């Protein structure tokens, strides 16, 4: 039986990017805020100091900073007729844990989505006609526009100190930036990071082919930067330990390096760590959240009453908590009813491996988000008419690491062990290069999340079941993008290169990205979305659900900039509208 604690105004579930942003924005309103975080407190000096942060085995291979599947996992299957089985260890994505969430161990690639991405259904239907889209594709407009989100993107990027080169300032195309991006109000807070050899060669080749290469926007900073909260980040040292790792230099944008030092000084904010929320509680009407129930490390259960509940966990766990708590109607793909779990989507990545004779790339001189990219084949930046698919992605030479367990490439046909393998690894480590595409993923009627009928977690709660596979549209897209990328790579002058387009079926054991999306999507109508345009639950008006959970489908970019922008969008809606008149912000 849970013991009841004194009520608070706001309870936040999960203290990662969105929880930290919401807490800081709402703290100024004087509300009493309690953030409940499943994992431990984490700070740079204690948890990833440069004395031992650069440990590939511990952090990348043994997943030290991530959630343990024993704590909570999910079951997976490729189709509705299969039996789902649990992910006993992590594979295709890495669920975060602890204060800072995924913001601790992301690569910090900080992309805005294209204006047309937010109106994907309308835009594509107008340009190509409704029949161009597969019948089972369930893409939708977001209910918010790029122009509305622009000030929020700006705030997140200036919080992070993002290093980049603008391509479009107030409609004026800027040389050296991404000419396809939506108009931004001003230049990036800091200039681009320096580029190693590989990205430089890629950019030369792309330019010769008529493309417009530009530096990838990076949350690993090119120089020291003090953000509007007064928190200072240091310059990136190109150590090559970003994704899967915490940054020991205070140079990767994370809640730790941008918000938490300011947030914890707010007298009306409190974080409870190592406390796992079991469910969101509802009153008898089922339309109002009364708070949450959580369990601490001793197994004691606590009920924390609150007037406003902000669900700020990672995408998968937001959906799981909604399903467990009985909020909204679970999605049923056969009846095509229910909104919770609907429109689960992912990211479709691919690569081209190239092997050179006379070039030394020093792959270990890296940051998670340096690189030179082109955007000619993203979103609807090119005519899809002749190709028979929709969507796209950015592509480029992104030099994230030279860690030898992850990045020892050998040409196809090389044995996996023995002298021949050893020689090939020694020969190709410094002289091979991998270029990548980062493609979007549409949503479909048969890709969704619900509760598993068989497997449970350590508290006896049902695990969430993911039913997902790649569809023909995405596989065609990946083939097309990889072919275009290979043309640029070929121009870089390799001895040989190998295309690795994404192929089906979706394999949950192979790491791709942690960009899982959807499951409680935003929109303009409760008949086709779980959340309104402010990420407020249509069903429970004192509940907001943050993060990529709200994406109706995924664009051809990394999601964090958009997740951060939506967090500011929601915070503004709460402080400027909701607090003055609590209740639904959108009336249908």
């Amino acid at each position, binding site marked *: 039986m849970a013991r009841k604690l*004194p009520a*608070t*105004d706001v309870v936040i579930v999960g203290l990662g990017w969105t929880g930290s942003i919401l807490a800081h924005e709402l703290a100024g309103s*004087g509300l*009493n805020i309690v953030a409940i975080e499943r994992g*431990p407190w984490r*700070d740079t000096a*204690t948890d990833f100091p440069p004395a*031992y942060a*650069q*440990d*590939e085995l511990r952090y990348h*291979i043994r*997943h030290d900073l991530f959630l*343990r*599947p024993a704590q909570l996992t999910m079951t*997976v*299957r490729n189709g509705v007729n299969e*039996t789902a*089985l*649990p992910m*006993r*260890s992590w594979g295709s994505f890495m669920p975060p844990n602890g204060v800072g969430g995924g913001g601790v161990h992301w690569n910090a690639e900080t992309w805005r989505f294209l204006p047309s991405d937010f109106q994907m259904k309308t835009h594509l239907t107008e340009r190509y006609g409704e029949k161009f889209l597969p019948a089972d594709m369930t893409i939708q407009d977001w209910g918010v526009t790029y122009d509305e989100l622009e000030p929020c993107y700006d705030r997140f990027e200036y919080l992070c100190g993002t290093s980049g080169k603008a391509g479009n300032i107030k409609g004026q195309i800027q040389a050296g930036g991404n000419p396809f991006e939506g108009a931004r109000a001003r230049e990036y807070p800091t200039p681009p990071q320096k580029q*190693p050899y590989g990205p430089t060669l890629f950019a030369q080749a792309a330019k010769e082919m008529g493309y417009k290469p530009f530096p990838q926007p990076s949350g690993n900073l090119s120089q020291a930067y003090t953000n509007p909260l007064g928190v200072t980040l240091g*310059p990136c*040292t*190109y150590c090559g330990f970003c994704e899967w790792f915490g940054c*020991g*230099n205070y140079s990767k944008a994370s809640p730790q390096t941008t918000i*938490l030092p300011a947030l*914890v000084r707010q*007298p009306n904010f*409190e*974080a*409870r*760590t*190592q406390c796992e929320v079991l469910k969101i509680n509802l009153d008898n009407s089922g339309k109002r959240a009364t708070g949450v129930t959580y369990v*601490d*490390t*001793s*197994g*004691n259960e606590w009920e924390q009453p609150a*007037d406003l509940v902000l669900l700020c966990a990672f995408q998968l766990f937001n959906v799981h908590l909604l399903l467990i708590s009985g909020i909204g109607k679970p999605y049923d793909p056969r009846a095509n009813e229910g909104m919770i779990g609907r429109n689960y989507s992912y990211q479709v990545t691919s690569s081209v491996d190239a092997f050179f004779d006379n070039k*030394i790339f*020093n792959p*270990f001189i890296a940051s998670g988000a340096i690189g030179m990219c082109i955007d000619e084949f993203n979103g609807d930046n090119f005519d899809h008419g002749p190709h028979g698919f929709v969507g796209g992605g950015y592509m480029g030479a992104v030099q994230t690491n030279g860690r*030898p367990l992850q990045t020892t490439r050998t040409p196809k046909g090389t044995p996996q062990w*023995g*002298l021949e*393998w*050893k020689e090939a690894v*020694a020969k190709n*480590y*410094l002289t091979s290069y991998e270029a990548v595409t980062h493609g979007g993923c549409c949503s479909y009627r048969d890709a969704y999340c619900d509760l598993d009928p068989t497997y449970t977690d350590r508290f006896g709660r049902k695990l969430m079941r993911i039913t997902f596979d790649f569809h023909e549209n995405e596989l065609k897209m990946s083939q097309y993008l990889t072919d275009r990328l290979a043309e640029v790579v070929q121009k870089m002058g390799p001895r040989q290169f190998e295309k690795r387009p994404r192929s089906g*079926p979706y*394999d*949950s*054991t192979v790491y791709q990205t942690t960009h899982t999306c959807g499951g409680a999507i935003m929109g303009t109508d409760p008949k086709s979305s779980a959340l309104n345009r402010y990420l407020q639950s249509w069903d429970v008006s004192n509940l907001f659900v943050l993060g990529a959970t709200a994406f109706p489908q995924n664009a051809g970019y990394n999601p964090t900039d958009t997740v951060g922008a939506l967090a500011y969008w929601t915070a503004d809606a709460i402080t400027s509208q909701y*607090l003055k008149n*609590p209740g639904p912000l959108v009336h249908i």
Partner: protein
Amino acid sequence: MIINKPPLSSPDDVGSGMPHPPRFQSGIRRRELMLTTATTLLFSTNSVLAGIVQGSLPWEQNAGAPPTEVRPGPWTYFTAEEGAAVEALVDRLIPADPQTPGGKDAGCAVFIDRQLAGSYGTAEGLYMRGPFAEGTPQQGDQSPLSPAARYRQALAALDKYCRATYAGKSFTQIPDNEKDKLLSGLEKGQVHLEGANGRAFFELLLQNTREGFFADPVYGGNRNMVGWKMIGYPGARYDYRDWVERHNERYPLPPVGISGRPEWVRKAD
């Protein structure tokens, strides 16, 4: 709705329900929340108890968790026979050549032994609830056995196979070309071990051997950083600002590990 109220006028004027000067109240809540009787933690790796953070960053000097350095010495998990077999196995997966030692001298078997004796070997943190069922390859490993148990089972099965096939000899006693044939057969699923999945064991062993060859030397493998020297990886160095824009030039400095370089360590123990 108590949420609908004006901004803070004093520090006491926060939240709802109870009178609460924040610090005092925090103390009460802390005691109330931390009434613990259980002494065991759910997850021992890097675990701390539930706690409250308020007012300042909860930083403590030297509160981190650096890795524990593996020392040479007797096997901690393997039996003598198992250890000898694993040394012979890793030395075929990564054979010695004139430039670089093989898996055995690089410490791969010691690395695997220490890993199996620790939280990796016991599958700590993995989801190990039943029911256990064979799935599709895309659904991943569904074995109910921990890595340590799999090694024990597979090494026994391998020994039995060798003695039956090679006139009573163990894996360590057969010629290198026979060892390679056997490994190749396991890799391709053509050699079947009794009571163990030979192919799955091969994959696990290969993965762990590579880990032992390329992981930081602090874990007992990659002795003298031979794996890193072989490919030109500078290891745990943390600052390349001067070298980012030096294109197509070989980085000149030798590797360092988390615990430094052999040259920095005192010679006599």
